[in-house]
Structure formats: C-alpha cells, structure tokens
C-alpha cells in the first residue's frame, strides 16, 4: 500500500472533538477583544459581557428545555459530571450509574462509594439489576443518553419510571455530551433532573460546558469563590466560550435534523461497507439503537493500537476506546461491561462523524480500513 497524501486527513474522530464552526468563532471573537470586561463587575464594559452571558443562557435554556436559572456554565463535560454527582450527593449521599459511563461519571460515583448497574450485551441498561440497586439511600442516578464509545442510545423513560417507584428522592442525571448531536435533547432528557454538556463536541471551543439543572435541585458547589452561577460554580465567567456555546447550540438546532439524516446515511454506508469487506468484523450495538454518527466495530484478530497507526499513515484519524492521559489507548471498559471478551475488545475501532464530515472521508475509510486490516492480519 502506498501512503496517501490528501489535502487534509480524513477526520473520523468527532466524538473526541470537533472543529469550531466559523460562525461560532465570529460570535465569540468580540469577547476576546473589545468586550473583555469581567461580567461580574458593575460598570458598562462589565455589563456588555454580562448581557452576552445572559443571552447565551437563554438560548441554552430554550434549546435544552430547562429554565434559564438552571443553566450552570462550567469548564466542560467532566466538570459538569463532577458537579452533578458530587454536588447532588453532598457530603453523605451516594450515587449509582451503569458500568458503561464515561470516567468523569464512574470515578465520582466510585468516590461516593456508589454502585454500578450492569448492562446487556447490546449496551442497554439491565433494568432488573437497576431495580435492585435503587433504594432510599441513593442521592443520584446517572445514565448517559448516548455512549461515547459504542454510540448506544439509552431511553431514559423506563429508568426514570423505576427511579420514581424505588427511589423517588434520587436525582436523575444524564451525561448528554455525545447525545446533543444525535437526539432531540429537550425531549430525550425531559425526565432528567440534571444534564451535562460539553462545547467542543458540537462546534464550540474546548473549555466550556453546561450543567443544566431543574429548579428543585440543590447542588453543593465544588468550586468556592466569587459565587458566580448562583453560588453553584465560582470562577470568572469564560465569556467568549459561553457566547460560543450558545452560538453553537443555535447552529446545531438549525441543522440537527438534516445532519442526523446525512451523517446517519454515511455511517450506515460505512458500517455496511466495513462489515461486508472485512471478515469477522461487526458493529457493537444494533443499528436501531446506535446514534447516527458514532460507529464502533470490533475487528477480530487485530490490535486497535496497531490499526490506528496504520490508519494514520493513510491519513485517517480515528480512535479505539477512550484515550488515557498519556495518549495510549485504554482497554475498553464499555466493551468489557457488554461482555465482549478481551481479545475482541482489543480490536475495537470507533469511527465518529460530525458536522465537518464529508463524503470523501467515508469513501477513503471504506477503501483504506480493509487494506490496513488485511496488512495486520496477513503478517501475523
């Protein structure tokens, strides 16, 4: 195989991050330059910044189906998840979540001596097991709407039902960091008491996120200081980031429906093409339950780390399971929870699409991925 040189790489890692939309950059730039005033101040330049934040808050509330007072701007998904779980547990409470959550949920739950709910082989929540774990001691139940590795979509309704019956005091939190791209979020999260979002997953920059909370929710703040965000999250507002977040949500709301259709068709083509061309290659969740733009496949008999090196050489940027801080690939706890054996999990590949994805990138992947797999298998 000859190494291909393209104008830019085929970027199929949108679940990791997306580029900032030009419109979003345009919207935020004034708040990095002329409107730099601290929004907590009292003078006119401060008020300009404060107005921009209030506008963004309004936009988010309307889009997400929460009250504006319930929009807490944070630094991103991890902080939102931590604030939700630690903040709602307080010093004594405990939390539960499925085994397939992001580590930004798993570790705070673990830190609260929480319990983990089993999932099915297809990544759905094991409701019978959930029922046994829900009791009067649970302060928070956290369930991700769309899994960041497998793309599995979860219906919160039966989970909220169980919560109502078995642990009505427990708050339902959802990490919707991926879901915001692929679901009518206000509807999908209408039973949630809290929801985490991260800007850079949908065309806003890194370093800004939201925790949306319903009015009755009391949070113990995790950052103490100037009392910003109604005493729930101290720290000077990231004005430009918050403005960008609002602008990106607006873009998303305008395009989501057509993008789900466009990217869903592309990822289906990718799924069918890859599983058809590569022997012993299969998707990890059924199509009906898979978010439109996240495709995870298992390719038996290969190591994903090696495959990713080859794909990069052929100008495809992708990932396997979650990256750890060093840049290495951690073995997938999601696939392990779904009962996939270690060897299968070692050969996983995640190809995730987003607003920037173009048709040629899918065509390129369809051509290159099977060749790379063949190279790895052939020389083993």
């Amino acid at each position, binding site marked *: 195989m000859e190494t291909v040189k393209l104008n830019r790489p085929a970027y199929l890692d949108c679940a990791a991050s997306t580029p900032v939309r030009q419109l979003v950059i345009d919207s935020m730039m004034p708040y990095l330059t002329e409107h730099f005033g601290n929004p907590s101040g009292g003078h006119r330049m401060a008020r300009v910044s404060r107005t921009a934040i209030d506008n963004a808050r309004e936009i988010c509330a309307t889009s997400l189906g929460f009250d504006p007072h319930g929009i807490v701007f944070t630094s991103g998904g991890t902080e939102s998840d931590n604030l939700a779980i630690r903040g709602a547990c307080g010093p004594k409470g405990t939390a539960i979540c499925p085994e397939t959550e992001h580590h930004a949920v798993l570790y705070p739950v673990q830190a609260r001596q929480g319990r983990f709910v089993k999932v099915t082989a297809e990544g759905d929540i094991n409701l019978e097991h959930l029922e046994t774990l829900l009791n009067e001691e649970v302060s928070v139940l956290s369930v991700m709407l769309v899994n960041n590795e497998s793309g599995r979509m979860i219906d919160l309704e039966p989970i909220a039902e169980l919560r109502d019956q078995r642990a009505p005091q427990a708050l339902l939190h959802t990490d919707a960091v991926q879901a915001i791209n692929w679901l009518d979020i206000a509807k999908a999260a209408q039973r949630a008491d809290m929801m985490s979002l991260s800007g850079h997953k949908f065309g806003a920059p890194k370093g800004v996120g939201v925790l949306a909370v319903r009015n009755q929710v009391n949070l113990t703040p995790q950052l103490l200081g100037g009392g910003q965000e109604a005493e729930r999250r101290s720290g000077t507002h990231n004005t430009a980031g918050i403005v960008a977040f609002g602008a990106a949500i607006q873009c998303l709301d305008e395009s989501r429906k057509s993008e789900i259709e466009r990217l869903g068709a592309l990822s289906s083509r990718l799924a069918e093409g890859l599983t058809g061309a590569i022997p012993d290659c299969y998707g990890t969740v059924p199509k009906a339950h898979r978010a439109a733009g996240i495709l995870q496949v298992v390719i038996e008999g290969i*190591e994903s*780390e*090696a495959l990713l*090196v*080859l794909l*990069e050489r052929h100008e495809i940027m992708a990932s396997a399971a979650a990256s*750890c*801080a*060093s*840049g*290495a*690939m*951690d*073995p997938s706890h999601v696939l392990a929870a779904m009962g996939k054996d*270690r060897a299968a999990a070692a050969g996983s590949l995640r190809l995730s699409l987003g607003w920037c994805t173009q048709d040629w990138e899918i065509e390129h992947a369809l051509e290159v991925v099977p060749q790379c797999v063949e*190279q*790895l298998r052939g*020389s*083993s």
Partner: protein
Amino acid sequence: MSRVLVAMSGGVDSAVSAALLKQQGHEITGVTLKLWGGPQDQGCCSVSDVDDARRVAQQLDIDHFVFNYGEEFERHVVGPYVKAHAAGLTPNPCIECNRHIKFDALLSRARKLGFDLVATGHHARIVTTDNGLRLARGSDLAKDQSYVLYMLSEQDLSLLEFPVGQMKKTEVRELANELGLRSASKPDSQDVCFITASEGRGAFLSDRLDLHVGEVVDVNGNNLGSVDAVELVTIGQRKGLKLGGNVNRTYAVEVDVPARRVVAGSARELLSDTIELRDHIWVGQEQVGPIEVQTSAHGDPAPAFLDSDGSVHWTEARRKVAPGQAVVFYLDDVVVGGATAN
C-alpha cells in the same frame, strides 16, 4: 534508508538513539510503552516519562505514539514477579519485560506495521561474527546492558539497532546536550520501574502477597531470631536479618520460603562452586567448556566451566546465586546464551 521504530522511554539514551538514526537519514517513528500505573509512579514508564519522550520527539520532529501494554506487563512481568517472590525466588522483571514486551509484543507489532527495524537505547552492541549476528557488551562497560538482553535470538538481532551501544554514557549526555534534548541531564532510571523509591519492594509485595514471618537459624539449625517477611529475603542479603555484629552469621545463605526459614552464615558459607540452571537459551550453538559468567545486571563476570548437563562450575568458588536470577554466558564480550538459576 530504513523505516525505524524507536522505543523511547523518556530517558537520554533512547532520545539520543532517535536523534542519531534521524541524522543518518532513516525514517524515524517514536513509540513509548505505557506499562504501568498512573501519574504517581516513578521509573521508565510513568506518565511524566511519556511526556519527556513526547517532548523529545517533538524536538526531533518525528511522529510519536504511545502503546499501552499494561495488561501484557501485568501478565508477563508483574504477576510472575509476585509469584516468584511467593515461591522464594529472586526474579529479574527487567529481563521478563525485555523478553515478553519490548522484544516480543513490540517487535512483532513493528513488523506488522511495516517497520524494518526497532531501535532502543540499550547499552549493548550487535556484532557480526563468523557464526552470524551476536549480542556484545556495550562499549561503556559500566553501563553495559547485554546481561538483560541475553534472550535475543539471531532473528531478533537482525531486526534491532542499539545506536548508543558504541558510546560512553558521558558521550551520550554530551551529544544530548549539544542537540539540546530535554532529557540530557535526566538521571538514569531505577532498577524496577513499578516499585517506587518511597514505598519500596516490601510495601509493593505486601499489597499483593501474604508475607510471613520467618525463623532465622544458623547452619546447625540453632534459632537466631526472625525476619518480618521471609519472601523478601534474598540469598546474600545482610540487611534486615537483625543479627547484630556476629561475623559468622552475617549473610542469608539459604532461604526456604515454604518452611519459612532463613539460614544465616558467614561469607565463606555463602560461597558455592556450582550453579544449577534451567531454561537455557543459546544464541547459535549450545556451549560446553570454559566460559565467562555474569550473574547480575551490574555484577562482574567471572571465569567458569559450562558443563554438558548445563550447570556452571566456577573456577574459583563465588557467592551463591539466588534462585530465579538470570545467569548469562559470554565468550570474550559476546553473549552466547543464558539461563535461570535453580
């Protein structure tokens, strides 16, 4: 020009190896192996070492990857290390890491990825002899690492490069300084990367193993006292036996973990003429006859006779070798094989 994968530990030797190969015009890719632990660990595979390796790769303008061999490391290195201690052996985890991770898993992955060669920063040389490729001691004898590489076959050697093997360590550091590499003055790595200096071997093993109090006796079986953990006592050890100043019973000369007993004796009682061995590996022909033998990573080689039954007879009696230790055979400075002490 070859396509070379350079294993970069974050230290100065592998950094200079990468720089040298790049200067020679090869197409270089760097890789750091993530083997163990989180941000708090020390040694050759911590996150901060990955950072150092990545920064050097950035300086050299080469691609850099991190491969996670954590599970393999646990399975082939850490697990057996703990088991060996439980059985009263003295393992050498660096050798097992070389055997299973660097020169097995990594080498085979490199080949699948189409690399012609894998390079590391080891101080050892690959020499061409009448009988084919052989591993020889590094030019800097004080830093020579051929002992921990004795398992490399001719086939392995044909796929490897040790670019700093011909250099003195001081030259390596000078070159790193000249090139402005950030690891130029980084201290040499510690012996066992997964055991931190602050916690130590005992604390590490006590988390994974039941440690037992052991009786200390003299060579006639008379009770002399006790040790806190018989599993942590190695033949030849002096520290920790709590025996005061009696020179006739200063060293552990025998360790029997199942019986939870340590025999303490004099320096003379620590001596032995013979090492019984298992798991021999030969580079080329099996050897019999006069040979140089090295029994620890930084130990001095000594003359011996290699018996046809595979055991080693010292020319002059030497300190006993702890069971589990690697014993490496040299002819001149060339590794001809190795084995594990019984």
